[in-house]
């Protein structure tokens, strides 16, 4: 969050969000395109950091299953999702990775994410998610670093002038390692 406020990040990161009581604000990603366009007018490219304006690319299908991809493509796909979120709005995304939590030092809010590492495991990207069922952290969630599978609908939302990405109405499943 600090990196976003100082304009240092190049991609959206997980953002402040109370876990037990998800926000009831209207999500940007609904079929209300007028509202979406109005909100998009209010954010500048600085929220993504030094990056070009994405060009429209049609992603076929309504689902994106990252669990069926190799580590190399999966990492690149997550980066594509975070770099060009407009192409994935409303799509159902299935992803598997490591359970991660970020706690804001300023507000104390906790944000949950699924992290995916690249082939060499030196880089990781992730997407925030909010579970469909109201859950409390840490009681209702696995330990940090646990392999999980998350399925949710991709959306973006605005907070403090910045745009963030997350999976809403997500289901969380712990993946048993063989």
């Amino acid at each position: 969050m600090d990196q976003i406020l100082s304009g240092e990040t190049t991609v959206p990161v997980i953002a402040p969000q109370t876990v037990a009581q998800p926000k009831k604000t209207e999500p940007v990603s609904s079929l209300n395109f007028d509202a979406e366009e109005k909100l998009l007018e209010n954010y500048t490219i600085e929220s993504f950091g030094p990056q070009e304006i994405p060009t429209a690319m049609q992603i076929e299908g309504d689902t994106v299953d990252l669990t069926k991809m190799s580590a190399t493509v999966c990492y690149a796909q997550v980066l594509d999702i975070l770099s060009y979120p407009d192409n994935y709005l409303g799509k159902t995304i299935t992803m598997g990775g490591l359970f991660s939590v970020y706690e804001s030092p300023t507000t104390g809010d906790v944000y949950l994410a699924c992290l995916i590492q690249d082939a060499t495991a030196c880089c990781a990207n992730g997407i925030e998610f909010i579970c469909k069922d109201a859950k409390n952290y840490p009681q209702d969630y696995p330990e940090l670093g646990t392999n999980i599978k998350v399925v949710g609908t991709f959306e973006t939302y605005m907070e403090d002038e910045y745009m963030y990405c997350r999976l809403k109405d997500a289901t969380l499943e712990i993946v048993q390692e063989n």
Partner: protein
Amino acid sequence: MSEILDKLQMYFSYPFVRYALIVGVLIALCSSLLGVTLVLKRFSFIGDGLSHVAFGAMSVATVLGLTQEMLLVLPVTVISAILLLWTGSSKKIKGDAAVAMVSVGTMAIGYMVMNLSSNSVNVSGDVCTSLFGSTAILTLSRTDLLLCSILSGVVVVLFILFYNRIFSVTFDENFAKAAGAHTNAMNLFIAVIIAVIIVVSMKLVGSLLVSALIIFPALAAMRVFKSFLSVTICSAVFSVVCTLIGILVSILYGTPVGSTIVCADMIGFMVFFVLGLRSGKA
């Protein structure tokens, strides 16, 4: 097999995979063309040296927050290439010593600058990606695609146009000079082209492995063919095929792209080496 084909079909539906294949092939093509000249002129390690310079320049560009790093990386690398390759025999530090000095110096400066001043949340990851090109080729934007395509296209066209002069300067520079060829200008031209190729190739295999794209295709082709033209053509085909195999294997099996391409080059070289031994030309 059908499972692999289905998976590939799924991957090809993603734009960033298609971009990676297009750019990968173009980079492989233009790096292999100049590789023959470099290997014959005993400048095989110049790729390593220049790629380290490019890494250093890229680090500075990142710290400065430049939107398009090429604006700094390309000129700095071109200037370094000119200094290393083109300056005359009167220079006090020559050949491999100059390359080594510039190589390690710029790499150290680059890493130091990244660590001390970087805005990145993951310096090690950024450095690793720049050095080894693990997924850089799969994260190209449309601008990167256009830029790499244009630069690669220019290199290929210039190589074809100046093929005869490159040939003469490669094999006997003194004779070419005596015959009236502008060898200094040709060497300058080759230095600039090599710098462009190195900068573009870093997207594919990273700084540390870029020499492989230059060396392996040329050496493999020389095991089997004798003439400059046949070695050049074979080198280009070899490089493109190995790069395609490397990218496809890496996306199918989740291996780092750069290393997989270099491994494919190595296996291809061994095959050509055996073929050369059998035909008695090694």
